[in-house]
């Protein structure tokens, strides 16, 4: 069972991931130059996975 606080954090992470993977943030990334869009997606994706790993694996004793 996850603690209520961890559940809240996971929901917040999901909301953040949705915001990162969709326009308008995506359009902002694209304006930065040619090739910026895939770079942005990979960085955001990696960041979300790292946060999820930290959230789900860390603090088991919470």
């Amino acid at each position: 069972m996850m603690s209520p606080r961890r559940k809240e954090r996971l929901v917040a992470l999901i909301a953040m991931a949705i915001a990162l993977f969709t326009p308008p943030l995506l359009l902002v990334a694209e304006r930065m130059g040619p090739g910026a869009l895939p770079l942005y997606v990979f960085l955001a994706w990696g960041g979300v996975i790292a946060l999820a790993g930290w959230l789900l694996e860390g603090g088991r004793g919470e």
Partner: protein
Amino acid sequence: MRNELTVLAVAFGYLALLFVIAAWGDRRAEQGRSIIGSPTIYALSIAVYCTAWTFYGSVGRAAESGPSFLLIYLGPTLAMLLAPFVTRKMVRIAAAQRITSIADFISARYGKSAGLGALVALIALIGITPYIALQLKAITLSYAVLVDYPLAAGERLDSAPFWADKSLWVALVLAVFIILFGTRHLDASERHEGMVAAIAFESLVKLAGFLAVGVFTVFVLYRSPAELFARVAETPALTDILGLSAVPGGALGWVGTLVLAFLAFLGLPRQFQVMVVENVDERHITRAAWLFPLYLLAINLFVIPIALAGLLGDTGGDPDSVVLTLPLAAGAEGLPLLVFIGGMSAATGMMIVETIALSTMVSNQLVMPLLLRSRRLSRGGQGALAGWVLGVRRLAILAILLLGYGYHALVGDAYSLVTIGLVSFAAAAQFTPALLIGLYWRGANRLGAGLGLAGGFTVWAWTLLIPGFAQSGWLDAGFLAHGPFGIDWLRPYAMFGLEGWDIYTHSLLWSLVANVGLLVGVSLFTRQSPLEQTQAALFTEALHPRLDQASLHHGQTPRGELRALLDRYLGAATSARVFAGEPEQGADQPAPAALVARAERALAGALGSASARVLIDSVVRGEALDLPALLSILDTTSETLEMNRRLEQKSRELERIGSELRQANTRLRELDRLKDEFVAMVSHELRTPLTSIRAFAEILRDHHDLPDDKREHFLEVVVRESQRLSRLIEEMLDLARLESGRLTLHPERLDLAALARHGIEAVQHPQQEHGIVLDVAIEVDEAPVIGDPDRLEQVIINLLDNAGKFADATTPRVRLTLARHKRHYRLAVEDNGPGIAEEERERVFEKFHQIQRPDDAAQRGRPRGSGLGLPISRGIVAHLGGRLWVEDAPTLGGACLVMELPEAPHAAA
């Protein structure tokens, strides 16, 4: 041209290795030493999501539509983040209800409806067969590229007879594999451990294969990523494909494909199989929730560099084959073969799991319900059905793979890999609304789900499948441009005039509108049957603690009939397992509810929940519980839980109060003892002077002839003893007043130094009589404090008196000091007696407490105290805002009583 024999040997050698791994996995499982009980293996088995479509198709899609290929993996990333909520609930339900497939799951949720299960199985069969075809196409194509390069692969394929197509043989070998490792148990809800082990291994192989090409491209072919991107920057046309403009449908298409991938991931039968049916431990979901997205990220890392390198190098041919043609064109030895094996593992992994999932659906949802109606089968001998079920499932496996092959042989060439994949995705996405809404909304019912699925499927077929046939040349493509019978608003790619969208987002929008609209709308206006209500509650409340299904049945059936049913359909061994622990006798006794539930679950594991329900209903008389009954059970459970929680809290409180009471009781006993002692002491103290007074008074009364000096002496004694009596009574009254708060003090500004000297004068004389030496050290000229002079003097005298009593027996000494300490004045009285032990220091201020002395002072003629002097003194000092305590005597070595009073504020000048 590579040696065909080598390639074939490697390919079929690889398949043989899969057999070995699966057999090893199954053997370990039989020995009770499972190799799949790890969250990492679980995450790797979920990676069956990455098929040949990922392996070859991603690069093709990146070359044509830019970063849109990433959406196929971002959608599942979002779905996996939700897994600790959604998948966990599905796993819990699947374990409780012995769910065998996604069709079984949806059928069970909506009242174990056989019709709904059949509909889902049918849609899956139609929607997913092209996807299996796609895998076979990838194997055929990659084999041809590998063997024929640099010749174009297509030429040779067109002219070859079907038996020369290696993918047919791969399909047949896989059929044998799946029959061996996928249908070992009749119970389809049991894990296929060997198969899962093989799938996890395949996930590693395909990742290694793809990363190898990536590293080769970026670091061997171009020496560094910087060099590759520098070359790309020189070609503006190439940089354009990296932007959102290359994505079909632009920003809207991006969102549409993301939603499509999210829904499809949850609705794909093979994903349901590995994530839910094959899950061995709920806790593995937490690890997979981030590890599987990490796998997706890793396998996609080199897609763009490979696609760009392919476009730069112009290796020729199909963009879907660039992964192979790139190392082939560079003349790399060995690497193309590794890539081929990687692609083959991606394809075979998908085919194995998808075929198991589909064959279970076909046997349990399509064929068995029909067979159960046949009288001949239901009258068959022991375990007749068991043979039938396995036979049907094995036939279904062969049929599905051949169907896939047929589709590939006939239609496959008309579509690119990505197109087939996305069409299948859109079909699988139709299951997700019924699945997700059914998990969280109790009101969703069978009719709504059935109509929603049918509606969504129809729209999908009209907007994606049929146009696909038309584009393959099988149908007249005219209706694409003008609509059927000239009805413009029904054009498949522009329904209701919605133009300019990419075809997948367009199809997803209208199919979801139909699907969700019908599901919700119809559910809101129709009623559920009692069984539907029960199942809906069981699904939506699946994470409710202590929900025990056994209590949900209240039908009646004799034990014997139930046993006969299980014998007939599952065989004696299974039936014995279900009846384990039940008494052998009493075949005509009614079976307990838990046994009926166990029997139904055993049947459900083999036949699916709908068929199991039909069979149980044939012997059990009485209905399943309706919703109010179920809700009352759930409510009772929550009430019980709540009650338990409160009880626990109360018990903790009681424990705390108990311990406080125990402490209080100990204290009371101690006080009681002190009181007894006090009463005894008071009686003694009162009686001693009274006895003397009485005795001397009687002498005086009876002897009138006493000499004057004697008479004088006796009268003196009577007066002294009366004074002692009144002093004792005075002390007791003081104490009573102090305790009740009625002691009235008259505080005024006074000089503590003067008061101390006054007190010394009062005791000096009697103490000198007892040989006590009194030292005085008053270090201040004046010590202004606020206090009641009479009471303070009483305290000082009491302290000096006490010190005298406890001073050393032979050379008694007492010392009084008065000094300023910060903003206070401290008056300390010490003696050279034995001192007061640390633990006794607070107790001397307790009422009636007396320190036991070995050399009792009374023996030396010194007066014994009442045990009230110090408590009274402390009470008075506290009333005046000061403190009174005991410490070690700094100069004389005995006890030291210190009184501290705050300095009086300066008097107004």
